[in-house]
């Protein structure tokens, strides 16, 4: 299938960001994690093509690249939905009832942490600690930290998010 010119240029731009990171780090094998961070921020996730590309450029076996990509929680091999909801499960949030928020979202959207709704609208994630303990229980909706959540408020906020 022939890809449209605009699609190609977007991918090309992203690829150049990745190349930039590798070049800044002198194409050394220790640039792997930095490079994967760039791939993820450019493409939204670590796709197979990029993993192969990075392995080749940094002269690393694909198994090692895959090993690192799957070892660290920050990396994901699946594309995310349009919106993301990261529920903090840090100690302060846990003590203040983050479990009930997680349960409410899981039940309402029929997804478990790490999954995306079938329509690709919402990805549900959990975090070890956002460091926003004074706002516990807290979550990140897209880019914004929202605090002092209740299950009801979390669902209302999410509804506003996915309908916007």
């Amino acid at each position: 299938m022939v890809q449209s010119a605009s699609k190609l240029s977007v991918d090309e731009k992203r690829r150049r960001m990745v190349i930039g990171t590798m070049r800044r780090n002198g194409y050394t094998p220790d640039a792997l994690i930095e490079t994967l961070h760039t791939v993820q921020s450019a493409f939204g996730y670590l796709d197979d093509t990029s993993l192969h590309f990075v392995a080749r450029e940094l002269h690393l076996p694909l198994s090692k690249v895959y090993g690192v990509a799957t070892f660290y929680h920050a990396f994901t091999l699946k594309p995310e939905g349009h919106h993301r909801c990261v529920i903090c499960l840090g100690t302060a949030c846990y003590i203040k009832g983050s479990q009930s928020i997680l349960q409410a979202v899981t039940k309402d959207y029929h997804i478990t942490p790490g999954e995306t709704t079938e329509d690709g609208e919402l990805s549900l994630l959990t975090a070890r600690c956002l460091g926003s303990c004074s706002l516990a229980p807290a979550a990140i909706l897209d880019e914004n930290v929202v605090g002092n959540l209740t299950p009801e408020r979390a669902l209302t906020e999410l509804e506003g998010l996915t309908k916007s």
Partner: protein
Amino acid sequence: MIHQIQALTPDDLPRIAEAEKAADNAFEHTIHVCAAAGCLSQHSDQVQQQLEHSIQDYGLTYCRVKGVGCMGLCSAGPLVSVRPEGTLYRSVTPHDALAIIESLSGEQVDRLVCPTNRPFFTQQTRIVLANSGEIDPERLEDYIAVGGYQQLANVLNDLTPGQVVDQISRSGLRGRGGAGYPTGLKWATVAKASGSRKFVICNADEGDPGAFMDRSVLESDPHRVLEGMTIAAYAIGASEGYIYIRAEYPLAIKRLHAAIRQAERAKLLGNGILGTSFSLNLNIRLGAGAFVCGEETALIASIEGKRGQPRPRPPFPAESGLWNAPTLINNVETFANIAPIIANGPEWFAAIGTERSKGTKVFALAGKIVNTGLIEVPMGTSLRTIINEIGEGIPDGHRFKAVQTGGPSGGCIPADYLDTPVDYESLTSMGSIMGSGGMIVMDEYSCMVDVARYFMEFCMSESCGKCVPCRVGTVEMYELLSRIVQGRASMEDMEMLLELCEMVKATSLCGLGQSAPNPVLSTVRYFKDEYVAHIANHICTAGQCQFESPTQEVQ
């Protein structure tokens, strides 16, 4: 202005400080707005914008607005402080900006005032946090104005590396990352190690849930950490360094990048620092969400671009670390203590705290407590002072049940031990650890068995999988704890749990596994009746655990 600062010599520092102070005195009022993550997530940036607009609208020339670091009382954010009066305003919204500007020539805005004559403010000793809330973390001049980089200049001019190590040793400073290893001893080991290439690493992989001290220090005063690292590099003979920071802290990363750029341009970092032959090149490495990377050898593996798995020690990183070169790894807060020690002398520092734990410690207070936020107290302060006075106790008339320190490697300390002084040894003797400084307060609605299970779940999923005791042991312990909270356990399960705890503690490869049983052991030690009530009577006194309904007997 930043872009005017070019290569500095030691003589330039007092000159810049003077100029900054003169510029500051040109304003009658400076309004400080917290621009650290806690207040920013409550839109303090909009407050700052609105204040600036109001000043512009009124055409005021005698006051200005300054974005500063964390002021500590995060639960009352966004915080705004008016100088020189020192009036603190809490929960400020953009709509309040006008009232605050108008108050400058009249009465304070009573409805927003946050009294500062409370223990939260009066009982703290701020060394590490001295500049937090005072300076603009994004301006190098602000840091120089409060004496920043002066200690680096003094060290490079007047002290030999050996003398620097000696000063740190005599101060009694111990590592603030958790284990409390004497910092001077660590520096001396790396300084003595042979090798032409050495590294200095700042561990900013603050992984404990409920701990945000390092993030706040980096967001509020990044140059202080850079200065500490540079002094350390000089003392041990390193010319390359890394800051390993969690990718989850975008603001801290941004400010660190900016600070490194500024310092390099001013020749406070990079090649030929302050006109001497000493060089240090610093790089930032982003963590990728692995708790185990807080462990030194795992952190090193991660910087090398590998999976963050620890390796057996010895050899310790001090002898063979990053790319097998001698490597010094200290925590953010440890580095932040260096410049004040050099400035005031080791005796000054050693006079603060207890006999074996010197100086202060920054804690992140969170959980069921009125004042959540960041505090700094002298070592040896009692838990009661921290929780009841500084933290102002438990909200909603609830009762204190336990305080959790040290994150997943620590333990829960009950009410009976509230008068214990907080230092490395006494926390360890109570079955917990100092850890990096997270303090989570719990009331009677927290089930201790469930808390133990929560931390075990954490360790289970964060176990790197390299050694069997940790990889398999945490799974088995989690399963046993799950059985207890679900009412499926027997007393034999409890015995097996304790046996496993001892085994995992004794045989795991690194600190993660060795300390993973701590939350279980400490809750069993102080709250054994809760475990028994779950197992024998299917009762959760906190009312948290949902027990499976007993199977119906066939009649």
